[in-house]
């Protein structure tokens, strides 16, 4: 499910499009619609933008937008959105589009970011995380203060030299960064991809323009 393909082929196209694919042949049809379909898909992915919680964008959809291709197939063309490597893992858009259940592959639990600080990051990037078990679930937390090895006095983590997100952690004594879960079920969202109508209309416009 890593790679998503949107097929503009004779079995789903309008009769007008079918006729053009028949008249032009797949290679010429592909030539005529290639760049327009790629552009429409890239612009659509770019517009998806931020996340539902309003956390800082990680550029998730930009990664996929940069890789969009259009390739000829037996009966038409396919817009392909190849998978990308995110946090060291191969990630495709298939889960976003079709939904499904994500389970841990190489570890026992999934760490779900629950803070703007941890969003787009993995637990390994945060030093001195500890596990906090509550009735609402298990969390990976970080202390906002620590005891100095030298003096035994309490000092704030990140007080000297740390900037940005790391520095923000000093504002709280205990920061909940990740929730540990055994699996996550994600709903599918067809709107991640351009609609069939949009793609078909783009293809029809591109072909029609060449016939003018």
């Amino acid at each position, binding site marked *: 499910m890593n790679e998503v393909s949107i097929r503009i082929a004779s079995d789903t196209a309008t009769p007008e499009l079918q006729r053009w694919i028949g008249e032009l042949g797949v*290679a*010429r049809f*592909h*030539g*005529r619609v*290639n*760049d*327009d379909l*790629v*552009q429409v898909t*890239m*612009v659509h992915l*770019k517009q998806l933008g931020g996340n539902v919680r309003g956390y800082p964008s990680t*550029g998730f959809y*930009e*990664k996929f*937008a*940069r*890789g*969009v*291709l*259009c*390739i*000829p197939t037996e009966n038409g063309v396919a817009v392909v959105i*190849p998978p*990308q*490597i995110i946090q060291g893992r191969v990630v495709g858009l298939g889960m976003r589009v079709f939904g499904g259940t994500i389970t841990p592959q190489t570890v026992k639990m999934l760490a779900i970011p629950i803070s703007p600080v941890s969003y787009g990051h993995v637990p390994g*990037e945060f030093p001195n995380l500890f596990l906090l078990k509550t009735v609402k679930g298990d969390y990976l937390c970080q202390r906002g*203060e620590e005891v*100095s090895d030298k*003096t035994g*006095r*309490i*000092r*704030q983590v990140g*007080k*000297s*030299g*740390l*900037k*940005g997100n*790391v520095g923000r952690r000093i504002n709280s004594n205990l920061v909940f960064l990740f929730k540990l879960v055994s699996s996550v079920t994600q709903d599918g969202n067809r709107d991640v991809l351009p609609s069939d109508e949009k793609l078909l209309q783009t293809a029809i416009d*591109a072909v029609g*323009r*060449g016939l*003018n």
Partner: protein
Amino acid sequence: MGLRRHRPPQQMILGDSSTVAQALQKLQAEGKLPQGLSCEQLAKLSRAIQKYSGEVSDRIIKKILADWKDKIQAAQSLTDPAAQRGVIYDLTQFVGNEEIANSIRFALKISQEVASGAGQYLNQNLSPEVLDEYPALEFKRLFDRTVPRGLKRGPKGALIMVPEDNWPSRWAAAGAEAGDEDWLEWEGDAQEGRGVALKSSGIWQALGNGAGGYDDTLGNPFPPFAFNSGFMTFGVHRDEAVNLGLIGADEVAKPAKINFAKLFSEVAS
């Protein structure tokens, strides 16, 4: 509440440790290595990545790690404390736990973008039919950036224009080095405008090479031409290319001169 941290001079650190690696570990443990990468360090890294146009990410990461290990090994063989301090200083500018992680993350991001760009570049050029229908490309912004090229942060976070660094300036400089007339002057403003050229024009490689003296480019004849760039290329249909005077109505479109060896293999070490 926070304690004032004592920061001993580097001579003392060296005196306490028998090797540079131990000194570095001590620095890391005490949190005295710089966090994050400066613009200069990012530029250094991007220049290093220029050598790997189209190369996949794991090789770049291995190269960064190997460079780091080589530097430590070289420093360990030094006997002159002053030379050792110099090497430590260099290392602290570039490495450290967080720095390596940032470097790898950055290299991975850039190399993925370059690999994706290479795929689109081939998609735009290899098919004779695609080339015939879309003989030219337009270069324009797709992805927004907090501080786009051509602007920089000024006092109180205000954005200040830096016209000599924006894409129209780079486009003009690249056109001067392109060696052909297959490109047009920049249309519109720096952020919303566009540059148009035939796919076969040398302007694309010149743009990626940093023609005009720009050292943040990646060496590709396709986007991203420079690190963290939000500009992309899109096909320009033959009708529009003809209207713009870039190509004749019946003229055969030429593809870019693709250097496959450079696109898919390590260019230099």
